[in-house]
C-alpha cells in the first residue's frame, strides 16, 4: 500500500518537475512566438507585455508577402534532406568499419575522422573558397550540401560506433552462419538494433544543414539558391533591424522542421525496427 502511494507521489513530483523544466526551456521560444504576433506598436514596449493584450498578423504577412520565402524553404528542405541522407550513407559504412572490421590503422582512421570537428572553420574560408571555385561548386546545391554533411559525418560515425560496439558480436556471427553475407546481416540484424542512433544522427544531420550559414554566405551568391537562414540574415539592413519580421520568419522556418520530425519519428523508428522482425 505504502509502495503505491510512494509511486503516485513520485509520479506527481516528476510531473511537476517536468512541467517546470519544460516551461523554462520553452520560454524563449514562446517569447519569440509572441514577438512574431505582436502589434508593431507593442514590439518594444517597455516593460514588455508578458501576455500580449492584442495580437496582429502584420509580421507574418510581411514574411510571406515581401520575401520569396516559399522558395527559400524549399531550398532548405532539399539541401538538408540530401545532407542527411548522404551523411548516413557515408557514415554508416564507416561506423561499421571502425567498430566491426579489423583493418590496419583502424584506431588512427577513427581519430582522423574527428579532425573535421577540430579545426576552426572560419580560418579556412579562403582556401575552401578557392577549392570550391576550382571545382565549380559555387552557386550549386552541392556547394551547400557537401560542407554541411561533412561537418556532421563525425557525429554520425561516432554515435553509430557507440551503438555498434555495445552489440554482442555473436548476433552477427549467428546471422553469418545462417547464410547471410555481411551486408544483409548488417541490414537485417544490426540496423534495427541501432535504429534509435540512426534516427538521432539523422535529426542532427538534418538540422545541422538546416541552420548552416557560414558556408552558404561564402558559396552562394544567387538569390534563387538562398536557404532560410540566409534569407533571414538578409532582412536587417544597415540602419534597420526589423525584429518583428525576423521573429516571424524564424517561427515560420522552425515549425515545419519540428512538425516533420515529430510526425516522422514513429514511422522511421517503426520502419527500421520492423525490418528486423521480417528479416
Amino acid at each position, binding site marked *: 500500500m505504502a509502495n503505491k502511494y510512494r509511486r503516485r507521489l513520485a509520479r506527481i513530483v516528476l510531473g511537476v518537475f517536468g512541467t517546470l523544466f519544460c516551461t523554462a*526551456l520553452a520560454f524563449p521560444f514562446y517569447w519569440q512566438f509572441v514577438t512574431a504576433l505582436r502589434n508593431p506598436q507593442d514590439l518594444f514596449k517597455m516593460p514588455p507585455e508578458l501576455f500580449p493584450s492584442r495580437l496582429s498578423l502584420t509580421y507574418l504577412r510581411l514574411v510571406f508577402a515581401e520575401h520569396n520565402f516559399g522558395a527559400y524553404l524549399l531550398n532548405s528542405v532539399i539541401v538538408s534532406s540530401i545532407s542527411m541522407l548522404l551523411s548516413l550513407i557515408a557514415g554508416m559504412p564507416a561506423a561499421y568499419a571502425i567498430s566491426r572490421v579489423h583493418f590496419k590503422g583502424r584506431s588512427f582512421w577513427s581519430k582522423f575522422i574527428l579532425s573535421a570537428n577540430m579545426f576552426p572553420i572560419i580560418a579556412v574560408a579562403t582556401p575552401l573558397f578557392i577549392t570550391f571555385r576550382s571545382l565549380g561548386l559555387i552557386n550549386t546545391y552541392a556547394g551547400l550540401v557537401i*560542407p554541411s554533411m561533412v561537418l556532421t559525418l*563525425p557525429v554520425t560515425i561516432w554515435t553509430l560506433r557507440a551503438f555498434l560496439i555495445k552489440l554482442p558480436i555473436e548476433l552477427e556471427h549467428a546471422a553469418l552462419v545462417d547464410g547471410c553475407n555481411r551486408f544483409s546481416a548488417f541490414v537485417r540484424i544490426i540496423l534495427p538494433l541501432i535504429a534509435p*542512433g540512426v534516427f538521432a544522427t539523422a535529426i542532427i544531420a538534418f538540422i545541422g544543414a538546416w541552420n548552416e550559414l557560414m558556408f552558404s554566405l561564402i558559396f552562394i551568391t544567387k538569390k534563387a539558391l538562398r536557404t532560410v537562414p540566409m534569407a533571414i540574415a538578409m532582412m536587417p539592413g544597415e540602419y534597420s533591424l526589423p525584429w518583428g519580421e525576423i521573429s516571424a520568419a524564424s517561427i515560420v522556418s522552425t515549425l515545419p522542421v519540428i512538425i516533420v520530425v515529430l510526425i516522422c519519428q514513429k514511422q522511421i523508428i517503426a520502419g527500421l525496427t520492423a525490418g528486423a522482425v521480417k528479416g
Partner: protein
Amino acid sequence: MRKENLLGYLLIAPAVALITFICVIPLSQTILYSLRYYNLTDQANERFIGLENYFKLFSDSKFYDNLANTMIFAAVSVVLQLLVGLTAALLMNAASRGAVLVRAVVLVPYAIPGVIVAQMFSFMFHGDFGVLNALLRQSGILSSAFPFLAKPGWAMACIIITNVWKQFPFVALLLLSGLQTIPAELYESAEVDGAGALKRFAYITLPGIRQMVLVVLLFRTMADIRIFDLVYSMTGGGPANTTSTLLYQAYIFLFKDMNFGLGSAWSTIIFFIILTISLIYLSLFQKEE
C-alpha cells in the same frame, strides 16, 4: 586478414575522402600560412618566418586571457548542457503523457538558426525592453533594470546560458537514443530485486548510456572551444574584453586586421588544444572498451 583490410578501407573511404577534401587539406593550408609572414595589406613582404607567429602569440598576454575565457566558457557550457540534456532525455524516455510536447521543447532550440538565437537572447537580456528584467522587476527581485550584458562576469554567464539553450538538444537527442537501447527487462528485474530509483539510475541507466555520454562530451567540447558566433554577435568580446575567446581573437586577426599569418597561427593553436583534449577523452574511451 588482407580481405578484412580491404573491406575496412573500402567502407571508410567515402567518409575519409570527404573529410580530407573539406577539412584536412584546408587545415594543412592554414598550418602553412601560420609559418609565414602573410599580411594581406603588405603582400610584397610575404615570406617564410618559421615559428615567429607562434612566438608572438605565446608572448602576448591576450592569448592567456582568451584561453582562460574560452576554457571557462567551454567547461561550464559542457557541464550544464550535459545536465540539462540528460534531464531532458530522461523526461522524454519516461514521459508517457505529454511526450510529444517534451520532444517539441527539446527540438525547438536546435531548429532555430544560430544568428537568430543570439539576437533573441540579446533582446531578452536587454535592460529596457528585455523580458528577463521585466520578470525580475515584476517579481520584486530587482528594483531597477540590471544590464546583464554590460557587466563583466554576467556577460559571460549570458552567452553561456544562450549556448546551453541552443545546444542541449544535441545532448538530449543522443542520450535519449542511448536510453532507448537499455532493455526494459533490466529495470523490471531490478525493481523485483528491490532496487530504488537512484540505484537503478546508477547501476542500469548510467552504465547503459556511458558510451553516449562520452560521445556527447567529446563533440560538445570540440564545438564549445571553437566558440565564435555568440561572442561575435552578442558581446564583441566585451565588456572590458571579458568574453573574448580564442577563435574570436583569431577572427579579428584574420578578417579585421587581414593578417592571415598570425590569424592562422591562432587557429592552428586552437586545433592543437582541441586535439589534445580529444585524445584525453579518447583514452577514456579505450579504457572503457
